[in-house]
């Protein structure tokens, strides 16, 4: 909300300068986003009197005015409506007008213009002007050429852009902020004139002109109306335009401007109807009918579903209550008789309708947060008084107030002890009482307790705790001591899963992988691009119902999409040696879950380019085995035993370079080379490997502290053997066979060479196994080892039909 400082000063004297006021407001909970002077740059605006008008020698559509602004200036204009003797607003060169337009001394078709004459648009007083502004005749006695127009128009103002939290609708007005200042400094509020001069009333009551019926008093507990006749609709006087301009409200006409002015002043939205459009002379406040339609002031037609509250003439809707008036009953140039509405509506009812139809107006914003139900009389009288002043006419002698559901001020018991125990301070009974009274509350004390009556403009103060907050914010929190709670809980720190996960992060960093954090939302098109849409059924997918854009509309069913996208981003920016990982959740529909979605934490990593980009002795690119090695290094370092791999075909991955990963025979993920044609769709023209592991499953098999093994006493004996292995054979079988051959004496088997190329048929690999023999009881002799070794070779050749490579 925009707060005009000069407007505010009508309601309270402020003992502080602007900076201090800003601090005071902020520290008591009224957010101040910005402080600015809306007419900055216009300080030199002057009142000018046109002394002479002469034609422009070189342009038919221009004239040259000699204007007295103390000195005589020549001003060129295209406005032909000006007359000698008119008083105008002159902007000398250097003036900054609205939208940062700087006035310069311009040569216009050969004649120098020493400034310009302003329209109201140029000083922000109206949306669109067609002519230079001429002061009206009745003002001419106050107008002296050369005097400051900046002062005359009251442009020396400061505006605070306030951020009002949703619990404080009372602060959405100047009087509301004045009340805050009163609570902070103790100054009292100034009276607001709500007098209606007797001579400006007629003999009849408002109820002689209108009948009011509230069908739903829960949704509309109060409806107050006033009738005014013979108003003259026209533009508002300058002071009113100035106030509205300062607080950012577009001027419409004098009657509507008054309703907006009073809303900004007192915080209560007001609606004005053209009385003659209410043919039935009857107001019926009722819920809409399902399918009913209404044309509102924004020119749009809305179809209603029955939950909205309407102001009707008994038949046709006149306005959507508290939100916007109807197009057909609004104030127009021809309006002469008006009906003013000041109502109180149930906040959720207004909010539902505003949300549903996506309308947010100054009115709905206030009603849905809660206005004061008990200020209606004051508000409507203020409106009448101002309308009579700016639009003429005569008011009915009495207003018509229908209040079927009275809202009484609340009463709350406040305990002094509780105040101090929550705020952590020691504040006295007297201090508490002073603060509460300054906040406009009635206080009765008994011993250490208070009975506090809350004004109805404070719907947020409902409980003792709310009063404690009030005391805290007015008293200030700067003197609260700083204490760290001393109690401890049963256990703290990371749990074993959190440690396990952190360990993975650190190990992957050691293996050269950069951690990434990608959006959990992906582009559903990726599924198709990867060919995954067939394997993950669409009904398992978790889509966002109201996404920002399609690119981030599907909750990722796998980490690989986002991770690959990131690889592609980097690859296309000259970063070709890439190792990245991510740990994060993936999502899948699950009707059994409370949230209907199952979330699983996974790890994925991806690599392409050189395996060790900073190592010039080792120039190999990432390949299937180095990549698989990274995964195995991770798993073995974490003492994950019983890891196995099984050749597999998965969409998006190379059909003969893809494996599923198992731990204790449970599938925990996959690993493989990304299909080149998939990679190319993402502009990646290199070999990429990717793996994804379900780390929650993995954790089930994780032992935080593996048992200690004795260090061997006797030396090992090593024997190497190379086999020619067909490409479609799984070497894991040989490894398992050797390890199982003699569990007592064979300690481990390693692969020390893997070769294809010269001398090896292209249907085969040559793989060299290195077998370590060791006994726990003695040093093994060559003979003992050779016997076992030869048996192994024989049996492998027979069992798997595999030849030794000579």
């Amino acid at each position, binding site marked *: 909300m925009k707060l005009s400082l000069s407007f505010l000063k009508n309601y309270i004297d402020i003992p502080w300068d602007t900076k201090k006021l800003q601090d005071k407001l*902020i*520290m008591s*909970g009224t*957010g101040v986003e910005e402080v600015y002077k809306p007419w900055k740059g216009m300080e030199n605006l002057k009142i000018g009197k046109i002394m002479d008008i002469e034609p422009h020698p070189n342009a038919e559509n221009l004239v040259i005015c000699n204007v007295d602004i103390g000195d005589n200036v020549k001003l060129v204009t295209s406005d032909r409506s000006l007359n000698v003797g008119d008083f105008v607003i002159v902007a000398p060169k250097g003036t900054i007008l609205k939208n940062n337009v700087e006035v310069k001394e311009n040569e216009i078709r050969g004649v120098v213009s020493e400034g310009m004459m302003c329209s109201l648009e140029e000083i922000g007083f109206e949306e669109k002007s067609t002519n230079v502004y001429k002061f009206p005749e009745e003002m001419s006695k106050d107008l002296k050429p050369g005097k400051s127009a900046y002062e005359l128009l009251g442009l020396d103002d400061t505006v605070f852009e306030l951020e009002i939290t*949703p*619990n404080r609708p009372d602060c959405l007005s100047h009087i509301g902020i004045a009340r805050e200042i009163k609570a902070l400094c103790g100054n009292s509020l100034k009276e607001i004139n709500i007098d209606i001069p007797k001579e400006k009333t007629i003999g009849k009551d408002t109820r002689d002109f209108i009948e009011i019926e509230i069908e739903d008093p829960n949704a509309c507990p109060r409806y107050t109306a006033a009738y005014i006749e013979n108003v003259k609709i026209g533009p508002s006087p300058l002071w009113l335009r100035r106030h509205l301009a300062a607080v950012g409200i577009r001027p419409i006409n004098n009657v509507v401007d008054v309703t907006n002015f009073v809303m900004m002043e007192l915080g209560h939205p007001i609606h004005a109807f053209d009385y003659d459009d209410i043919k039935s002379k009857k107001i019926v406040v009722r819920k809409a009918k399902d399918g009913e339609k209404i044309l509102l002031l924004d020119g749009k037609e809305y179809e209603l579903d029955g939950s909205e509250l309407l102001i009707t003439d008994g038949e046709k809707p006149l306005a959507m209550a508290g939100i916007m008036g109807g197009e057909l009953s609004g104030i127009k140039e021809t309006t002469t008789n008006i009906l003013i509405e000041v109502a109180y509506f149930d*906040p*959720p009812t207004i*909010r*539902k309708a505003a949300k549903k139809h996506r309308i947010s107006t100054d009115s709905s914003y206030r009603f849905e947060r809660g206005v004061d139900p008990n200020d209606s009389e004051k508000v409507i009288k203020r409106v009448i008084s101002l309308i009579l002043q700016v639009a003429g006419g005569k008011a009915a002698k009495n207003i018509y107030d229908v209040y079927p559901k009275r809202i009484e001020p609340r009463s709350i018991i406040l305990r002094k002890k509780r105040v101090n*125990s*929550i*705020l952590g*301070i020691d504040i006295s009974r007297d201090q508490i009482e002073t603060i509460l009274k300054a906040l406009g509350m009635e206080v009765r004390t008994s011993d250490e307790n208070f009975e506090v009556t809350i004004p109805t403009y404070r719907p947020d103060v409902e*409980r003792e*705790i709310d009063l404690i*907050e009030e005391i*805290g*914010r007015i008293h200030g929190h*700067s003197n*609260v*001591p*700083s*204490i*760290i*709670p001393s109690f*401890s809980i049963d*256990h*703290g*720190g*990371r749990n074993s899963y959190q440690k396990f996960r952190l360990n993975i*992060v650190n190990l992957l*960093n*050691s293996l*050269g*992988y*950069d*951690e990434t954090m990608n959006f*959990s*939302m992906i582009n559903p098109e990726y599924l198709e691009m990867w060919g995954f849409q067939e394997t993950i059924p669409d009904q398992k997918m978790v889509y*966002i*119902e*109201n*996404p920002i854009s399609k690119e981030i509309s599907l*909750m990722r069913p796998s980490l690989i999409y986002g991770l690959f996208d990131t690889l592609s*981003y*980097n690859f296309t920016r000259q*970063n070709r040696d*890439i*190792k*990245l*990982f991510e740990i994060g*959740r993936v*999502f899948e529909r699950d009707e059994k879950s409370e*949230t*209907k*979605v199952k*979330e699983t934490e996974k790890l994925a990593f991806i690599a392409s380019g050189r395996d060790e980009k*900073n*190592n010039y002795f080792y120039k190999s690119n990432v390949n299937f085995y180095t990549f698989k090695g990274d995964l195995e290094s991770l798993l073995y370092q974490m003492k994950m035993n019983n890891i196995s791999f099984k050749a597999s075909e998965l969409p998006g991955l190379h059909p003969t370079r893809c494996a599923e990963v198992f731990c204790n025979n449970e599938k925990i993920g996959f690993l493989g080379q990304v299909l080149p044609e998939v990679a190319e769709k993402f502009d990646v023209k290199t070999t990429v490997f990717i793996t994804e592991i379900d780390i929650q499953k993995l954790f089930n098999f994780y032992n935080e502290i593996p048992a200690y093994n004795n260090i061997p006493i006797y030396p090992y004996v090593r024997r190497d053997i190379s086999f020619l292995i067909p490409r479609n054979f799984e070497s894991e079988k040989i490894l398992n066979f050797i390890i199982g051959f003699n569990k007592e004496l064979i300690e481990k088997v390693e692969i020390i060479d893997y070769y294809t190329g010269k001398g090896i048929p292209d249907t085969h690999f040559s793989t060299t196994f290195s077998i370590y023999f060791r006994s726990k009881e003695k040093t093994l002799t060559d003979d003992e080892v050779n016997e076992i070794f030869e048996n192994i070779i024989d049996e492998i050749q027979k069992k798997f039909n595999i030849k030794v490579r000579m």
Partner: protein
Amino acid sequence: MDEIERTLEEFEHEIENADNLEAIKVIRVKYLGKKGKVTALMRHLKDLPKEEKPIFGQKVNKLKNSIEEILEKKHEEIIFKEKESKFEKERLDVTLPGARKTLGHRHLISRVLQEIEDVFLTLGYEIVEGPEIETEYYNFDALNTPEWHPARDLHDTFYISTKDGTLLRSHTSPVQVRTMKKSKPPIKIIAPGKVYRKDYDVTHLPMFHQVEGLVVGKGISVAHLKGTLDYFVRSIFGPGRKTRLVPSFFPFTEPSFEVYVSCGICGGKGCKSCGFTGWLEIMGAGMVDPNVFEEVGYDPEEWTGFAFGMGVERIAMLKYNVDDIRLFPRNDVRFLEQF
């Protein structure tokens, strides 16, 4: 010149020209070997008259000693020279960069998350995690934000299904409710995690990270909240940084605060980066609203507590002067590898 002197002169000449161990060996044999020149002189001794023997003997012995000494010296000299030339041949340029292992980097958000976690772990907190997809109940209703409360506007929420009332959590606060429903007080937790809001521009991400804190105990007051946040701010931003509690509003805390830290650039005097206020907003906090306690079955007369919630991206941006929040989800390796 006698035989002995000639032999020495000859030896000295030869040894002068010897430049490797093999040559020395040859010279040694030539003079001191069984058929060597010195050995021959020794043998000649027995042919001399008796009175000449002692003098000659002495002279030959002296010659032998001299030769041995010179040979030894020369031997060492050559060994030294050979070593020296071997090292020279093996010389490496020690200024050439090492063949480095490539180490990976923590994502800045992950690093800052851990920094924040570690501060609270030293205070004995427990780390609790909750689902990223929540129900309206946990995300709003149980947090004193009923359906038609305007406070719901504070979060523009992504829904999975408005019909089911499932959504992407808009804050980590639902973890408070889940934790309190599951366990009895006292409680001291932090809840880090991803949160989602329908906002995407230079200063907002649709997915970002928060750390929620909740402490419930007997006699917990605003003073405890202040003490905890002071400790946190000094641990993360450095000693000397101040905190300030500014009254604000959140539906699930009462009183509520926005927490500010004194600007590290101007020290609180006011500069461009703090908008000339001297203070930077870092989180929301407050005393747990009694309605929340009632919702989870705690007696608000017996237990009080505080809660806070901070944006990790915000803390990271302040601490590491990151000026564009979109760098975090972009994952450009040229950004990642700076941390």
